[in-house]
């Protein structure tokens, strides 16, 4: 309006556009499943435009054209809030915040069918911040920016338990916590979170950890504080932020402005939680920013063998002039990091790209929806880390500003 550009990122602390693309963080780790029967799609893609969203089966990631024109299920009125989508195999789950519903759907042969929808009002705010699978059928979900949770039996579609983590006297008055990751750990549930002073409206530059008993979810005990990086985990549901390798759990921090916790002076990195432990390993912090001239990263997908695919915001400090630049400026690059060697093992050979975190792993190869501003479309690229080979695949038509999200269905 006044032809001025302002740095308003502080105003948007911790805020993200809903439209930001989503990657489900807990996909089944199927490994090699062998060839798939002809005609049964193994993958799906979800388009979200400003006025409608569509779920499409994909038969072939590596050739042809994937387009939502006249194809796929219109899921505009099912997945009304993209970040609330949870996918596991051929099943999709979502919390519909308007009608107060938790639904389970089956995506088979290109059709999304409702298996069951149940009333769901067990939180104060039906927008998800995280989810985790306690076991193959028990799903735990939580609200964004708070400490509410629900535990759901997805086989029987019943709510086992819901509530707010009772912090007892562990937190001072006028302080609230917002959970960034949840990990089942032995007989306990391990939480990482941030603490906010509601009087000053400030969130401390500290990663907190705590443990509660499972399944009672009682006996909340703060197990540690860490100032090496924060927030420990993601701020919104669907952001890839943790994986386990050789029994250890690795949690990616999200200090990035705008798309993360807005802690510009903190590095992005992995914390480690040793097998069975409920504290951050004090001897381990994989500081990725230190290897990228201070850049911040977001998670894309776990590749196996301690390697993760991340997307690096190259020189965002100088590149981002206004808020939209976080999405629409070609400044992103894919990197593969190894949490064991604590090294960047590969920077994928692409020009600087637009923001996208959509990829699936299949048969040891990763298929990435690459959003190159200069290309005539988004393309799926296959990266084989064993041979270090990049191959161009199917053309993805559409993607209205956001990169469509890939899902693996088995």
């Amino acid at each position: 309006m006044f032809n001025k550009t302002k740095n308003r990122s502080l105003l948007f602390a911790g805020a993200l556009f809903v439209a930001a693309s989503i990657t489900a963080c807990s996909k089944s780790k199927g490994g090699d499943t062998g060839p798939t029967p002809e005609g049964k799609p193994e993958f799906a893609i979800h388009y979200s435009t400003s006025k409608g969203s569509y779920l499409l089966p994909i038969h072939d990631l590596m050739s042809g054209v994937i387009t939502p024109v006249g194809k796929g299920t219109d899921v505009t009125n099912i997945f009304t809030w993209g970040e609330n989508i949870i996918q596991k195999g051929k099943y999709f789950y979502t919390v519909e915040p308007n009608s107060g519903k938790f639904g389970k759907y089956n995506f088979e042969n290109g059709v999304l069918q409702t298996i069951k929808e149940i009333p769901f009002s067990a939180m104060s705010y039906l927008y998800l911040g995280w989810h985790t699978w306690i076991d193959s059928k028990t799903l735990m979900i939580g609200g964004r920016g708070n400490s509410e949770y629900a535990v759901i039996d997805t086989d029987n579609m019943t709510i086992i338990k819901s509530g707010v983590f009772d912090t007892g006297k562990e937190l001072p008055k006028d302080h609230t916590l917002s959970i960034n990751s949840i990990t089942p750990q032995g007989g306990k549930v391990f939480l990482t979170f941030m603490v906010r002073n509601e009087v000053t409206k400030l969130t401390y530059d500290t990663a907190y950890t705590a443990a509660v008993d499972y399944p009672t979810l009682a006996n909340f005990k703060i197990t540690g504080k860490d100032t090496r990086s924060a927030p420990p985990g993601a701020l919104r549901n669907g952001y890839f932020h943790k994986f386990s390798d050789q029994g250890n759990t690795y949690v990616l921090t999200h200090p990035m402005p705008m798309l993360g916790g807005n802690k510009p002076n903190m590095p992005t990195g992995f914390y480690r939680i040793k097998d069975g432990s409920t504290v951050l390993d004090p001897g381990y912090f994989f500081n990725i920013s230190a290897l990228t001239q201070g850049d911040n990263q977001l998670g894309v997908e776990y590749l196996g063998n301690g390697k993760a695919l991340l997307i690096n915001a190259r020189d965002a400090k100088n590149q981002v002039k206004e808020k939209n630049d976080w999405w629409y400026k070609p400044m992103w690059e894919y990197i593969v990091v190894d949490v064991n060697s604590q090294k960047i093992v590969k920077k994928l050979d692409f020009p600087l790209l637009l923001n996208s975190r959509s990829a699936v792993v299949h048969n040891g190869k990763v298929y990435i929806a690459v959003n190159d501003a200069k290309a005539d479309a988004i393309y799926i690229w296959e990266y084989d880390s064993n041979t270090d080979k990049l191959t161009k695949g199917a053309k993805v038509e559409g993607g209205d500003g956001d990169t469509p999200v890939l899902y693996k269905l088995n």
Partner: protein
Amino acid sequence: MQIKKILLTGVLCVCIFCVQAQKLIKSSIKGQVSDEQRQGISFATIKLLPVNKTVATDQQGNYQFQDLSPGSYTIQISVVGFKKLEQKVVLKESETLSLNFSLKGSQNELQNVAINGKTKATKIKESGYAVNVIETKQYANTNSDINQVLSRSTGVKIREQGGLGSNYSFSINGLSGNHIKFFIDGIPLESYGSGMSFNNIPINIAERIEVYKGVVPPYLGSDALGGAVNIVTNRDRGKSLDVSYSYGSFNTHRTAVSGSYTYPKSGLKVNVNSYYNYSDNSYKMRSYPKANVYLQVPSKDKSGFDTLSSAKRFHNDYQSYMGQLELGVADKKWADIAVLGLTYNNVKNERQTGATQEKIYGNVDANSYSIVPSFRYRKNRILVDGLSATVFANMSISKEVRTDTSSFFSYRWNGQPDELPNPKYPNRGEMGNKSILHYNNNNALVQLNLNYQLSDQHLFNLNYNLNTTTREGYDEIDPYNQTYNKTNRVNKTVLGLNYQQTFFNNKLTNSFFGKYFGFSGRPDSNKPAETAAYYGYGLASTYKITEELGIKASYEHAYRLPGMVELFGNGLDVIGNSELKPENSDNFNLGLFFGKTIGKHRFSADGSVFYRNAKDYIISRAYSNSQGAYSESANEGGIKIKGADFELKYTYGDLLSALVNMSYYDAVDREKYVQGTNREKITYGSRTPNEPWLYGNTDVSLGKSNVFGKKGNRLQFNWYMQFVNDYSLSWSKLGDEKTKDYIPAQWIQNIALTYSLKNGRYNITGEARNLTDQIAYDVFKQQKPGRAFFLKLRYNINSF
């Protein structure tokens, strides 16, 4: 932009040169046409025989014939609602004859409007602008509010979320919401505070409604991207009284009183306008598989859902009232009218749903009130002949409170919440955290309108508007609310200049106009003001090919400046975006009009095509952070709209009137590339979803006067049908058609029967809406009321 400005200046210079080149010699006749209360009558037709010259009176009733040769003439004056008058005059050489006429009212003539001369509506319609003019007399006995009458008009679509008083979005030729501006008697509606709205103003307050499509004359001094609606109220009528009351379904009560009295000797005048509306709005919601609508409620064991076939709305009471009192003087040396006024309005509203009917509230309320002192002044001859001025000033003080403090959560259509108060969630409200949100809004407006009639052929109009707004928002129960308490201010200046010329015996009329928009804003009291300026321009032309047939064309490069809330937020649930650019649009209209009278038969036809190219479109995006859900405005690529509409009307005396109209538009995404790339957007050129694009109305009235052997009474039957074609809720080309949600086509039937006595003094009307009880939907598939019945009593006199 610079070139456009230079061109515009050039056009204005040429026009002024033309004006000065006119020679003012020979004889002339001028004067004023007024009613019995000495109020000027605008748009009266004055015919001069035998030279066959015709002029119309201006807003104040003034007329003028120039360049006349000396000799004998006959002047004929005709205007709707008054008896025709004829007078012979003899004009000498170089004489300027001043002749004033006073016309007598004619009640009976109302039914014959189409036969005797042109109505005001026709006059405005033939002005070159693409405009619908609705004379509200024919609806005065119905239970309608302004919106319901407007929705019968071509190119207009009003999309309501529910019953009486519900939120609505007004669309003109495909541009809607904030892109349309509303006025009452030329005053921006927003300057009356938050409570005045077209969904609660009863039709009896209005005399005429003008809908300007795409191109807005500068005398409506505001920034409108897609058009404007101006309600002309029936004030300053000397002596008149209109009292009505109606009662009907859903416990709906509506009362309206408007009256006016001028003391003949002192010139002291009193105007009163007021209304009261109340409704439970407890209409039936229904499951409708065809539209994929199911009213789901938790099953007994809460393990799933049961579907209700229907359910009553249970938290939807609406009450609004308004009182306006004006005191002043008329016909003084220093003023034709000088009036002080005070308006108060109050709205209490229970909220039943969110943006969709999936989100149900059981205890959220919104209440507001405004107090608006005002002053208006009119003087017809200032310093020189032909110069007249009106001045208006008001100040509104509005307070709005939205309360969401219930501990019950997640209501269903059976009226029951899923969740009872739960100590685990002490702060949980229905819309987010519990809140009592206060919005305090103060607005001051000064408006000056100058008219200068240089001669018969040349009319200048200057409009100046200064509007200043401050707003404050805070949450009464947020214990940590210090960051939310913000005051901000916006000043808006609109300067409009219009030059209208008529040639060839009024066959050709051209209007050229330019508008300046000045803007300054202050995000909060600690920050310096920032300023910006923009220039809009346009023209409107009409040419009468024959007496019956005419063609008109208009164009405007229109702007809408972002509003205060869009720029600076409201401190609560809307985040400001001070980087917003104003949205702008190039709007084109081309129309044909035809009217023919043979005996008692009168036939008229209007048709138009239009094109809009709206850029830097301001849209509202939902986003959220850990503290809750917010919305923020942003500029988008915009839309291109092309469309057409037509209206055919036939009347036979006062016995029959039949109207049919149809509107079509195709609004497509005009943003070609995906942001940040040179890849074509998949929705580029596709029709924007969730908008009706084909709709129409038929409206047939049959009436007979002097029935049952009595004089002065009348029985009138009206059948009105509204059609809306089906439309898709999401991009229709994306996704498998079988899986898509459509709003089914709707044919809504309404009938009304009115019995009037004593020439329309006493009226009683029975009305049935949505007679066939169709399930009708509107924006985002919100269900509208089903069948409803109303009874209305009305008392009306125009002089006593």
